[in-house]
């Protein structure tokens, strides 16, 4: 591990530890969690509908 990445990871861990039990951290993680959940669900639903539409249009072309 390079000196830079070692320093960066040390700072990151120290930063995270300083946030422990912090209300700001809890609210931040709540918001990030909400966004992550909604984004994942939207991605899956949109891709599902997109592939389903492709299947339907493919079947229509086959019948034509």
């Amino acid at each position: 591990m390079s000196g830079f990445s070692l320093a960066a990871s040390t700072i990151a861990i120290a930063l995270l530890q300083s946030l422990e039990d912090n209300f700001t951290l809890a609210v931040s993680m709540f918001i990030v969690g909400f966004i992550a959940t909604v984004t994942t669900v939207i991605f899956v639903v949109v891709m599902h509908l997109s592939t389903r539409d492709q299947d339907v249009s493919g079947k229509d072309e086959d019948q034509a």
Partner: protein
Amino acid sequence: MRDAFLSPGVAWTVLIVFGIGWIALGFYWGRRAGTTNQYLFAGRNVGLALATATLMATWVTGNTVMSAPEQAYLLGIWGIVGYSFAGFGLLAFAPLSVRIKKLMPNGFTSGDFVHLRYGRWVWGIFMVISIFYFLGFLVTQGMAAGLVLQALTGFPYQVGMVAIVLITTVYTLFGGMRAVIGMDFIQALLIIVCLTVVAVWAYATFGVGEVFRGLQENEPGALNLLLPAGLLFAWNTGLFAMGEIFHSNVWWQRSYASATEVNFRSFLLSGVIWMSVPVVTGSIALVALALPGRFDIPQVNMTFPIVAAELLGPVGGLLVFIVVFAALASTLSSLLTTSATLITEDFYRRFVNPAAPDQRVRNVSRILVAVLALLTIAMSWVYITSVYGVLLLTGALVGACVWPIACGLYWEKANANAAFWALLLGSVAGLTFYFTVSSFAAALLGLVVSAVIMVGGTLLRPQSFDWSTLAKAGTSARSEGETREHVGGEQ
């Protein structure tokens, strides 16, 4: 030490009656499991009622009965709401199960998909995560079995744990997936009926208003929606559940086993029904918080059995015993059979004997079920205090699987290198957060880091992929000249 809620005579009678009944049914259903397709996938044509019941029963684990009330006891309202978000995993997997069945109608495992889609390096890291997860899951179920039976019946911890693991293993060995799904249907009914009786009985005894006033006076923190630990916990459970379900062969094998037209509805229905279970078990824990001093709770993960049994007497203890027995058996049997399939397909057939005939595959799978059961007993022999803490550790890893799996199923340009680094760095980030800050948000951090790498890497370096490659799963993906007697064999 407290007295047991059930007398040893009643406890042994129930255990023996249920054990013999389930093993007999396992033999009966196993008579028709004459091919690998029948033994591992119940013929790949399971209908809506059975599919929904097996998904729901499998997802009601020992943790749902023990850890949901534990979280409610520790975090109050957020413990209940956050735990019920685990149902999102089943809901979000509904579209994916349709896609899986369409792309790989003869597929065997989740490992099959990852190997064909991303190659062996991603498959390697995915298998490490999968094995770590299913071993952790098996251990938590084994420990939960010993602990709950000890509290309810006074059995020594090891006796209860070994009894449940052995009964489950025997019917799984002989009946395969057909027995697992059939038994799950019965166990789902038992769980729903018994939990409903316990919840209605408990709140009819004390009343919702009395519990609420008790919480306001004695534990106002339980009603605090701005509790920091509760906020951390809230979305993590849902994302953790997505990671568990998206990657685990337990759910992939169910997708392969169900009829194409029922996959979507069965996952949706089971998710909705499942969400009521932690609400019921968690709300029982609130009764204990509202009435301090009434309940002696030596360990927080024993809240539900103790409260239900003390409130409702021996009948309550019996109902809880049946719920726990059914929940543990349904989850253990599913884990044993799907984990054995994963090892059989992804290691034995990939490296040892690619041209293994049908009978040989079933025998290897059976041996692995027995080996995994013995491993579960060995690893669960000594009890660890917080069962849920062990499982949360795996959350850091499985959270990192969500986006590589979803992108791989839907996004033609998904980059294999991005998937590798997403799995690796997402897992590292989640574990770092778990050990340095909080176990509650490890899955969340793993998922976010993994998603950014997966999407960013693919946008920077898109790759093309031929979807028809996935159709080879379960047919001729591994080696030229390989024969698969079981594919369509019983038609």
